[in-house]
């Protein structure tokens, strides 16, 4: 049996590798292979997989990438992920990527789709729009047609064929992957001292650059290993961390939250890996099934319109209740419109339920963790010392 440290060490290597060597090697292994990059928060990776392509998650450059060119493309007041993504592009680190998908998350990523078209005209670039209307015959039909258009665009550009049969197989493979991601999250919530949040993050993040089959195996191995390992349980409080769905926090920030006395029992990191909440049916029309899952069984987040006022923010309350969290940490990237505009509404919902919370901002290259530790530590102390429980 592999031990969890070896697995996480491998994940860390993947995380630190800004040249995406694993994806390059996958592509080079067979002639004609294609790699399609995608940005947060969600794309139906099943479609790419069904065409024999490797979906490659691009979530910025982190705190190790020196942004030189990227700054020249942006104004002063903007988040960092577009700068570092441009940097990855212009520095040649994505020169093996055949296509890029820019999901509907905010105006910055939306406009980046057009920038990519201008800067990399030979790369297939698509703004991946999703419906904000969730009626089957309105938003559903629109989305199905968008998925079909995406399939056709990939087929044309990449010379692949995406059949219904292949889609069904890929849906089954991704169902399995999502089940394992959920299992990892459940395990962490149950025994967080055995599953440090930074390890879980690295494990899930590896799924952005590895073939899905390999990632599923990796998660199985990790789960098997950690169940047999023991680590000391700390007197930490249990928190949900939210606002991290796009620009990634530095790994040190995740570690700092835990070191300051908070077990992270749920988060909204890397939502693409568990965006669809249950298994997508394999029988019938595969694009219709993906559309139905998106409309009716997908995550709630700031980039999605919530048509029911009473339902606004309830996903956070449910998460707190389900995982026995004692508080919520709002950690949002600076200048992140969706997260920061949503935050007051979510805070009102939590306040109504007497759920304590704190908030701070970060950038993917934030280096100074002391204020975060102090804030999170004070939060943890206040929960431990003063909470009614």
């Amino acid at each position, binding site marked *: 049996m592999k031990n969890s440290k070896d697995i996480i060490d491998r994940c860390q290597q993947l995380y630190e590798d800004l040249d995406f060597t694993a994806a390059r090697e996958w592509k080079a292994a067979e002639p004609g292979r294609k790699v399609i990059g995608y940005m947060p928060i969600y794309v139906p990776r099943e479609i790419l997989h069904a065409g024999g392509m490797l979906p490659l998650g691009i979530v910025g450059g982190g705190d190790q990438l020196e942004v030189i060119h990227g700054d020249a493309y*942006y104004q002063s007041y903007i988040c960092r992920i577009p700068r570092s993504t441009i940097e990855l592009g212009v520095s040649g680190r994505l020169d093996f990527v055949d296509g890029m998908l820019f999901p509907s998350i905010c105006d910055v990523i939306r406009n980046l789709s057009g*920038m990519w078209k*201008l800067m990399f005209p030979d790369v297939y670039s698509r703004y991946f729009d999703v419906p904000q*209307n969730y009626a089957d015959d309105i938003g559903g039909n629109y989305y199905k047609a968008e998925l079909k258009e995406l399939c056709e665009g990939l087929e044309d550009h990449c010379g692949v064929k995406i059949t219904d049969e292949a889609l069904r197989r890929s849906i089954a493979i991704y169902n399995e992957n999502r089940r394992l991601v959920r299992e990892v999250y459940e395990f962490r919530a149950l025994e967080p001292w055995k599953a440090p949040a930074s390890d879980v993050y690295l494990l899930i993040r590896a799924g952005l650059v590895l073939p899905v089959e390999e990632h599923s195996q990796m998660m199985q191995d990790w789960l098997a290993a950690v169940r047999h390992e023991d680590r000391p349980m700390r007197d930490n409080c249990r928190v949900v961390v939210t606002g991290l769905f796009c620009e990634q926090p530095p790994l040190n920030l995740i570690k700092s939250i835990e070191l300051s006395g908070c077990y992270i029992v749920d988060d909204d990191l890397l939502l693409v890996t568990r965006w669809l909440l249950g298994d997508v049916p394999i029988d019938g029309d595969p694009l219709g099934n993906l559309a139905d899952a998106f409309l009716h069984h997908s995550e709630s987040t700031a980039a999605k319109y919530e048509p029911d006022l009473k339902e606004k923010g309830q996903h956070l309350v449910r998460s707190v209740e389900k995982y026995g969290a004692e508080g919520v940490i709002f950690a949002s990237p600076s200048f992140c419109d969706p997260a*920061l505009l949503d935050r007051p509404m979510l805070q009102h919902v939590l306040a109504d339920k007497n759920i304590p919370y704190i908030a701070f901002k970060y950038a993917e290259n934030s280096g100074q963790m002391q204020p975060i530790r102090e804030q999170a530590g004070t939060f943890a102390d206040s929960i431990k010392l003063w909470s009614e429980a």
Partner: protein
Amino acid sequence: MTEITTSRAERPAKDAVKDESMLKQKAMMAGHYDRLTSATERGEKVCATFVPGNLNELIMCFDFANNLPEVNAIQNGLRKKSGRYVMESEKLGHSEDVCTYVKSDIGMMAMGNLAPNGKPLPSPDVLLLSYTGCFTFMKWFELLREQYQCETIMLHTPYEGDGWVTENMRNYMVKQLKEEVIPKLERVSGVKFDIDRLRENLKRSAVAEDDLVYVLQSAKNKPSPIDAYFGGIYYIGPIFGAFRGTDDAIDYYRTLRAEVQDRLDNGRGPVTPEGDMGEEKYRLVTEGPPNYTSFRDFWKMFYDEGAVVVASSYTKVGGVYDFGFRHDPERPLESLAEYCLGVYTNRSLPQRVDMLVDYVNEYEADGLLINSIKSCNSFSAGQLLIMREVEKRTGKPAAFVESDLVDPRYFSAANIKNRMESYFQMVDQKRAGVKGAAA
């Protein structure tokens, strides 16, 4: 944008002579705010919606008064009230990083929700969330919904990511209009939808749109009889606001067109807050919204140097009409869908570059000036690439300044003036270079 009521502090020492169109617009705006602030006592219902994707013709079919929060924020910016409102909103927990239109609106509500006429604005009966070309709109109306607890209708406009409108996008929008928007507006208003009434409104829109386009395109002349950015903001007021589809809008644009024609006939340049502009020395295209808290200071930096804006992208944010689109009474819902899909900020970056290149060439401009707005990523994200592309394709110099819509903390007059002066020198050098090469 639009419909400007000037504060005492902003007024020049000597009031400029007002053209008839200016007086008319002022009266229209006063009437609009009087209608809004008396709506409750008169039993009239109120619909709040946004400028891009503003479906005024449809809203009128249900006898709603149309309240546009962006216009209120602009009024508060011009009247130097927005700074306090933004800070009030930040005190209430809104981040310093986010859109100041939103924060000005929320701060205004917290401090009495007073319209420019000093009377309180009514609570909306319905929020028509025309999610067009700006992600923030969605959050803004979720925030207002939390406040007002009223019916909120989402109309999702897909983004023209590939640079064109597909059948799927159009059908999606028409279906939303038919099956969601109209039935809900009927329910809230108690008024049955009459498509012929909508057709009549659209017919009136198209008449006014023709005259607006004439006015905007008059800037192709030398000297330009208009300033298509600072002046243009006044010109788009009625058609981007609560007047599109009304007889008032037709009258206003007819009057404005005649005035512009008169200026053209007499070889006169644009009117500025200090009277007619002198010699036209520089012809510019601008990209991005203006700053409203120092609107006149910003404008003065242009006209003091003899710079006139001959075309601007901002005056297309509530509808792009100068490439042929008109509201079409024969295809009412499709036409509304295409209007929403085509507004400037719903267009892809390559489309925006194409438009700006076209403006620089068609209007024989000396270059492009970008005002990057801190609040508005819909406009601002990618503008430096737009700048490079326009420079590359036109061979004309471009400049980049930064400010904000209605947050005075982000307007640094000295910095902007410095950059503007350097830019005009660049234009001069470019011209000298061209002349030198020709000699």
